[in-house]
């Protein structure tokens, strides 16, 4: 443990512990630095950072850990290495219908796949350690920035014009030479030249400080603020209520409620279009290359009877929009995206007639929707009472009728029919609206004798109402989204500031006719040297820009 350093500079300025270059005159403070002739370490202008405390307590130690750029780089490297691991096999969330992932990974990717799964790499990006890395990067962003930006701000805000000779001559771009004539005039002339290049020039006798684009020094910090905001927004999304991600299926003409909300969506029509052969190059002719998927959608908000299954909800129209890929329906935070489709037609309703086979008379038609049909139909002299309604009719292993699903793929109705020529109490009649089912399940045989007395049947396609397609929409709501964009905006702004402008400073002093010039930039030394050479030429000194290089031209 060394003795407490003497941090008072010979110019009289009291510096904080850890200061490399006197904040006032720029003289190197550490004995070792003082003896060397190497170019100075100019990072953060040599000011002490907060992390350079004498007796750190545990908070300081944590602070010091995260304030190190080296640690930040390690975190970045660790993050991209683990991100790489996550792309070796597809992640779990890319499979929609897999339930047993261990089995799936083993079957598809062998023993390595199982190890991959067991290590948790099959959900790398949701794992605690990956999110932990992101949180650590976030912490590092905050602490690294705070640790440096405040001292740097102080240092740049009160700069001394006349700098120590060592400070000037140990910059990375340096010129030394004799000036003939009036030195103060020369200094003024040199300053005027720099003004034309956009420098702000401050003079103190023959000493001069010219500075430009200081704002670019704040670029990295603005970028970091943006990144922090971005990371916070992403973390916020994992809180409940911040985002929604649902899928809904809507057949043409249907209106469906978005679960958990009061919004209803109607699909008026789904359309798919393919490229015609003449639009395709030879190799692709004859292939079905999709040109457009479109859902004509209407968004409603329910105002009354929303969740009461017995009552019809009262809907208020909010917006109509043709949803296509790349053009979702947007309403406030809610977005509906075209996700997928199904072209299997779906029967909605039929309008059959009843034929009295004995007299040849027809009665009807009457309305028979596949879902929620009226329980009693009065058609001419007949009365139909609905006993059973199957959506996808089938016979199970015991020989009993069952419905396989809730979608009307093979609908069947069992009526209790009363009317002329039928038994007093009525007789049961099974009706399959679809011709294919009528044949498969042999409707006439099931109805027995009744089949010869009457028939329920549909007259022509005009009396059939069906949906040609169903659309699958992805419903999204993301309340953190605007913060994501704000974060991205600031990050980008900071990057532009820091990359396309450079902070350049030139110091000169003239001692007994001898000019000493030093200049510093945070990037682009090539441009720095050409600025200096150009201004020197304007003041009558011609030099090759490259000759200004004082070596160590590295940062």
């Amino acid at each position, binding site marked *: 443990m060394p003795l407490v350093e003497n941090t008072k500079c010979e110019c009289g300025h009291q510096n904080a512990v850890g200061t490399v270059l006197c904040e006032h005159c720029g003289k190197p403070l550490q004995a070792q630095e003082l003896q060397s002739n190497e170019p100075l370490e100019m*990072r953060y202008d040599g000011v002490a950072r907060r992390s350079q405390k004498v007796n750190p307590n545990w908070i300081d130690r944590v602070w010091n850990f995260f304030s190190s*750029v*080296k640690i*930040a*780089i390690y975190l*970045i*490297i660790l993050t*991209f290495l683990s*991100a*790489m691991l*996550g*792309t070796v096999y*597809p*992640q779990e*969330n890319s499979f*929609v*219908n897999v339930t047993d992932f261990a089995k799936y990974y083993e079957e*598809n*990717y*062998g023993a390595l*796949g199982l190890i991959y799964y067991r290590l948790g790499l099959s959900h790398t990006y949701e794992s605690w350690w990956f999110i932990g890395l992101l949180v650590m990067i976030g912490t590092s962003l905050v602490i690294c920035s705070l640790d440096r930006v405040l001292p740097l701000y102080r240092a740049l805000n009160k700069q001394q014009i006349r700098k120590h000779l060592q400070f000037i001559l140990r910059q990375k771009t340096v010129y030394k030479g004799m000036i003939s004539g009036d030195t103060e005039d020369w200094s003024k002339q040199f300053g005027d030249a720099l003004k034309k290049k956009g420098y702000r020039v401050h003079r103190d006798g023959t000493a001069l400080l010219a500075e430009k684009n200081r704002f670019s020094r704040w670029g990295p910090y603005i970028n970091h603020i943006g990144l922090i905001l971005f990371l916070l927004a992403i973390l916020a999304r994992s809180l409940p209520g911040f985002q929604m*991600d649902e899928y809904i299926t809507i057949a043409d003409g249907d209106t469906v409620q978005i679960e958990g909300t009061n919004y209803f969506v109607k699909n008026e029509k789904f359309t798919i279009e393919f*490229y015609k052969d003449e639009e*395709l*190059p*030879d*190799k*692709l002719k004859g292939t079905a*290359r*999709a*040109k*457009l*998927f479109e859902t004509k959608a209407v968004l409603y908000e329910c105002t009354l009877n929303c969740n009461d299954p017995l009552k019809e909800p009262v809907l208020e129209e909010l917006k109509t929009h043709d949803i*296509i*890929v*790349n*053009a*979702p329906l947007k309403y406030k935070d809610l*977005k509906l*995206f075209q996700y997928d489709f199904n072209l299997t037609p779906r029967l909605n309703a039929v309008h059959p007639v009843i034929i009295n086979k004995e007299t040849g008379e027809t009665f009807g038609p009457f309305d028979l929707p596949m879902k929620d049909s009226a329980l009693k139909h009065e058609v001419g002299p007949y009365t139909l009472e609905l006993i059973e309604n199957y959506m996808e009719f089938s016979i199970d292993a015991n020989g009993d009728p069952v419905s396989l699903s809730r979608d009307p793929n093979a609908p069947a109705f069992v009526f209790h029919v009363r009317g002329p020529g039928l038994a007093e109490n009525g007789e049961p009649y099974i009706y399959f609206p679809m011709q294919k089912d009528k044949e498969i399940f042999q409707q006439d045989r099931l109805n027995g004798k009744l089949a010869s007395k009457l028939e329920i049947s549909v007259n022509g396609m005009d009396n059939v109402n069906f949906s040609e397609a169903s659309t699958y929409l*992805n419903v*999204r709501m*993301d309340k953190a*989204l605007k913060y*994501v964009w704000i974060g*991205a905006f600031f990050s*980008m702004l900071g*990057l*532009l500031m820091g*990359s*396309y402008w450079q902070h350049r400073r030139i110091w000169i002093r003239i001692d007994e006719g001898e000019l000493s010039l030093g200049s510093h930039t945070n*990037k*682009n*030394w*090539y441009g720095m040297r050409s600025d200096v050479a150009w201004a020197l030429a304007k003041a009558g000194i011609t030099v090759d820009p*490259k000759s200004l*290089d004082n070596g160590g*031209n*590295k*940062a």
Partner: protein
Amino acid sequence: MNLVDFSSDAFIAAFFLYCFAFGFYVIAIFGKKFSNRDPIKHQKRWGRVAFIVSSAGLAAHLTFFFTRWAGSGQIPTSNMYEFMTFLGMAIMIAFTIIYAIYRKPALGMFALPLTVIIVAYASVFPQEVQPLIPALNSIWLKVHVTTAALGEAFFAVAFAAGLMYLLRVVDFNDKSKAARRSQFWIEFTLYTIIILIGFIIAVFAFRGAGYEAQFNQEHIIIDNKGVESTKVETVDYTLPPIFMPYNSQTVSMDSFLGMQEPLLEAPSWMNGVNAGRKLNTVVWSIIAGTLLYGLLRLVFRKPLGAVIHPALDGIDPDDLDEISYRAVAIGFPIFTLGALIFAMIWAEIAWGRFWGWDPKEVWALITWLFYSAYLHFRLSRGWQGLRSSWLAVIGFVIVLFTLVGVNLIIAGLHSYAGV
């Protein structure tokens, strides 16, 4: 003649102009040592000629781009051929900008062949205009792809300058362990580039000879009801099948050097579209590249690094280091904007999530993190020069993997970009 045909002619013109420009840059650098001339004047004169020719190449390339756009009615960045030609053009734009700042003809000696290789690589892919599928039909196709490619082009220039730095500073006579390691890796980098050339040569040689083989590959598909079904797909090969597709039968096959049957089968874990064919192509590239490399070694009788090294003699390595760093510093914000921010905006519009950990997205993020590590390393002592040049070289390898490798071996939402 329609515009698309005209654009193809412009493309060929651009390709040859690039080749000539490369020749002139080589003359500008190597010619300094010819007798009876002033080396400075020589370099200035031939450097200017080379720059004019390479700019004419770029003009022809731009003509190609815009006439194809006008002729097809869609921006030509929607399949691998169009994207790679665009990347080549972007590299030329980046090179022209950097050249305008630093005026170092030697940079052309490295950037031009890189462009030529990428443009030739593009020509391997089918060139007809393919109408857009709905997912690509968006203004963001224009914005995202072009800015991302321009950012990557600056990384390519940083790579060229970094490689030059390495070739310039590594002493090929030094026998120390560290020097040998550098020599090995430089040689390895050059060998990798030659494999890419080998790939192009193999494809065009067999295409010229009209080689064909065909396989029926069985895919097992599990639909979203969990029902398994198999789909048979025909895979056409234009290179003799060392590896045939996984789980497939030979339909027809031209014999090659007495080879009547495919030698091996591609492993099952390669998931990309047409993975077997791609693997086969990679193997052929390595074979052709190795033959080419061996031939060059026979001609020069020393490592290729040692052949190029003397040409870079008069160049200040610090300048090269600076150019490489500057190219990264210019490219990084453009890359961030194009490959991440615009990509997120488009993903939000098209898929409803700005980020989905799709492999292509992840690799774009990896590229970005790598270059941010690079930029932070530049702040530390001892990481300039040699080390950061290596980083610039590795970084571009990551860029290429993101652009090509991901489509080659990892399936994902961006798979439509692969052929």
